[in-house]
């Protein structure tokens, strides 16, 4: 019974709880028991929220009994540890916030709670969301449920692993350059990044403000749609959140791709990823065609500048965003002889290698004398990306591509930062243009799952999710239970 319960999708749980067939407390209890059973091996969570989850489940049961129908009633949710939740530790995977208890709740998390969702734990992540494997967490190791010797991807690795290992039905992640889509692909689940500004960033600890976007990781597209409907929409607390109605999508997901034009990017040459991977993506494109889509070749002439552009803008913003971790008001403080030495010691002890590297790159890129050559130029390149996509979308409705450059790799496999950065080669251009994009399972390479990335024009989440649903239902690549469990 418990085993069946944890395998239920978010849609199934909410349906059952709203129909009175199951209580939110039972659904939550099953998830918590399962977490206790597997998480010592998987390591999805930095903090388990058993008490808070049980209390929230009770409130949901009361609300349902009082006649309310909640779209996420009783659904266990893993919350990436860069989102604030009142009274819980919110670490960003960093020593500098190791013991910081948030006194307020992020808008997206609050909306999950309001919709009846149950936060069951705070999920591990690369420190300050900087990384693609979760190995940059200073506070714990998360393993890929499909092979415990391999990474779950990152930076939302904990949320992805939790959903893949049935510890939660929904994982909240954040995506700056691919941090939802890549771990989604690595863990055989859906990773969905909505349009920049769709989901409020209030309470999401910033990495790169102009790129960060919260989104769901789920085992089905329908669940991704449900979660998206719950968290999307304007928030007066976030000036960059968009005041525009969110089209309901979860009840109108299509079953085929007839009449859709799907663009294949000329510059995204998959041959360089190796024969096996190339064959897999050619197969995925064929599947799209078999489901009724018309494939068209499109061009993103700037594609190769994505990484360079991203690694100027994101570090520049992070160098400023992370200044506040100074030991003065909260978090780690290492004392010094004066305030300057206190800053230095605190930040030296509190931040990991990758975070320091990006702060340095960003500080340099913004320095007087270099600003025009780096930051300003990167912003101009960003406009070119947006224009390239605009032109491409004149010829197609969606764009399909790999979600990551390889399947999940083993721990310590990427020794230099650049090879790690390359993992996000296919996801970064969409991030720079602010587009909605997701990864959906598309097959297996060497026994590990691979993801197909689908991207849509700004605000066309409904179209995107609908097409992904058709692909998911038409191929059923995801139907394989993690053997490691």
């Amino acid at each position, binding site marked *: 019974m418990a085993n069946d319960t944890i395998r239920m999708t978010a849609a199934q749980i909410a349906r059952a709880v709203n129909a009175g067939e199951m209580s939110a407390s039972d659904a939550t209890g099953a998830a918590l028991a399962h977490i206790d059973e597997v998480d010592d091996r998987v390591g999805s969570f930095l903090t388990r929220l058993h008490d808070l989850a049980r209390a929230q489940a009770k409130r949901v049961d009361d609300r349902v009994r009082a006649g309310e129908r909640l779209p996420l009633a009783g659904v266990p949710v893993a919350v990436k540890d*860069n*989102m*604030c939740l009142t009274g819980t530790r*919110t670490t*960003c995977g960093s020593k500098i*916030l190791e013991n*910081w208890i*948030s*006194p*307020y709740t*992020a808008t997206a998390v609050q909306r999950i709670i309001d919709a009846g969702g149950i936060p069951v734990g705070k999920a591990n992540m690369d420190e300050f969301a900087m990384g693609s494997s979760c190995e940059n967490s200073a506070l714990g190791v998360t393993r890929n449920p499909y092979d415990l010797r391999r990474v779950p991807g990152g930076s939302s690795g904990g949320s992805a692993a939790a959903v893949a290992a049935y510890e939660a039905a929904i994982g909240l992640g954040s995506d700056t350059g691919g941090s939802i889509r890549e771990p989604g692909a690595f863990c055989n689940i859906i990773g969905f990044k909505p349009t920049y500004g769709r989901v409020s*960033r*209030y*309470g*999401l*600890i*910033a990495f*790169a*403000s*102009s790129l960060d976007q919260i989104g769901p990781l789920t085992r089905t597209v329908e669940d991704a749609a449900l979660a998206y409907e719950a968290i999307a929409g304007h928030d*007066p*607390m*976030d*000036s*960059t959140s968009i005041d525009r109605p969110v089209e309901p999508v979860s009840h109108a997901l299509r079953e085929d791709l007839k009449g859709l034009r799907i663009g294949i990017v000329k510059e995204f040459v998959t041959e360089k990823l190796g024969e096996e991977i190339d064959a897999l993506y050619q197969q995925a494109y064929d599947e799209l065609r078999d489901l009724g889509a018309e494939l068209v070749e499109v061009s993103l002439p700037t594609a190769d500048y994505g990484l360079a552009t991203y690694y100027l803008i994101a570090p*520049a*913003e992070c*160098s*400023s965003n992370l*200044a*506040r*971790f*100074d030991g*003065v*008001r*909260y978090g780690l403080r290492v004392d010094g002889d004066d*305030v*300057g030495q206190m*800053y230095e010691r605190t930040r030296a002890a509190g931040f990991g290698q990758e975070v320091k590297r990006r702060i340095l790159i960003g*500080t340099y890129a*913004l*320095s*007087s004398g270099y*600003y025009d050559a780096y*930051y300003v130029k990167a912003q101009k390149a960003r406009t070119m990306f947006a224009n390239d996509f605009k032109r491409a979308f004149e010829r197609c409705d969606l764009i399909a591509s790999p979600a990551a450059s390889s399947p999940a790799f083993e721990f310590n496999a990427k020794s230099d930062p650049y090879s790690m950065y390359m993992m996000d080669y296919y996801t970064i251009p969409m991030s720079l243009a602010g587009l909605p994009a997701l990864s959906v399972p598309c097959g297996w390479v060497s026994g590990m799952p691979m993801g197909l990335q689908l991207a849509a024009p700004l605000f066309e989440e409904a179209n995107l999710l609908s097409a992904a649903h058709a692909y998911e239902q038409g191929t059923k690549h995801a139907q394989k239970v993690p053997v490691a469990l």
Partner: protein
Amino acid sequence: MNTLTKYEAVIGIECHVELKTRTKMFCGCLNEFGGEPNTKVCPVCLALPGSLPVANKEAIEHMILAGLAFDAQIPAFSKFDRKNYFYPDMPKDYQISQYDMPLTQGGVVRYWLEDGTMKECRLTRIHLEEDTGKSTHAGGGDGRIAGSTYSLVDFNRAGVPLMECVSEPDIHSAEEAVAYLEALKRTFVQLGVSDVKMEEGSLRCDANVSIRPAGSTQLGTKTEIKNMNSFRSVHRAIESEIERQIEILESGGRIVQETRGWDENEGVTHSMRSKEQAHDYRYFPDPDLVPLEVDRAAVERLKASVPFLPWQRFERYHREYGLDVKPATQLIDSLPLADYFDKCVAASNNPQQSMNFVLGDLSRLANETATPVHESPVTPEHLAELIGLVSAKTINSKIAKELLERMWRGEGSPKVIVEKEGLAQTSDTGEIEKFVGEVLAANEKAVSDYKAGKTNILGFLTGQVMKASRGKANPALVQELLKAKLG
């Protein structure tokens, strides 16, 4: 030629003014001075992880209004930038400010000097930013950071909206600098955009000072003077800095570009940091805030709400009405009084007398009773009536004074009182002659003294006649008749 006239000072002023708004610049905390430390704070103004700023509309409107009052341009687009540097009382370790696209550009501040000369100082820009918290250094060191063992930070002020007015180097003396600042202060107070309380730190300024040979058009090397906490210290600091620079040049030295702090106790400036040590603030557009598109219709509405400004008032009072600089300024510095004065002038058409009453007897009564003039029962129209009665010589000044006190107590129209009580001054020769006759008969000694050459006794006799007439007699006529009788 002495050294002071050999050189010309060139001064530009950067002035920070806290805006009067209901809430802080980027969060919902109340914008109020003081309070228990760290009680007017929230996740946003404490820069807790994950918090985001949302710009305050009221502050932006205040800024645009201030710009319009100085004839500044209001560009259609503006944006916020981050100014990055570490400081313990700055929660985010960057300040949200405006770098290259401020809300207002250009403009002119018109101000006047003590001799009534009208001056102009061009503005470079006014931009909007946020204030920092306040540090207190404790555990020894007498409040200074040196010698203290720990510091406390109060973030109540953190995030209060601040406008920075940057002037062009159009100012040439300490006197002009202070007059310029006073003009800013008056204007902001009148616009209602700030209380401008220097003692609460809601106006703070720095001065860029350089000197050059008189007649030269090239700029000399400047120093930036900080830590001036009152208009008086602005005056003293600039004078002292000009002297210091002249001494250096006169002794063949060279001015170093640097920041210097004013020491109020010692009356000198000290070097704080040189150009080489200047911060690189790494400005970049704040990605948490969207660019501001300034609504033209809103600008037009604000333009229409710009009031009659202090410098315009001064032109009217001083040049048109002929009031002296001091009383004119005194009126302008108390807006309710100036408004009251304007209404009184409108009704009396007598600015000089209106000013005399408003700044004289009325202000005295206001002081004595702790009631502001404009809230007293004396309406400007009644005061104008009183002025009319005096001008028409219907009553003399003594009666006017008495009447004013009765009006202050709420007895209403002076005209009505005068008519009802028959207080009108009489110039009826027959009637006055009767009083003169009575007084001369009752004061034989005075009469003989007068005739013996003690002509100053005339004042006493005049007083007696006035008293007999219950103040109604025309004093000039009384004297004339007395002299005639005494022959």
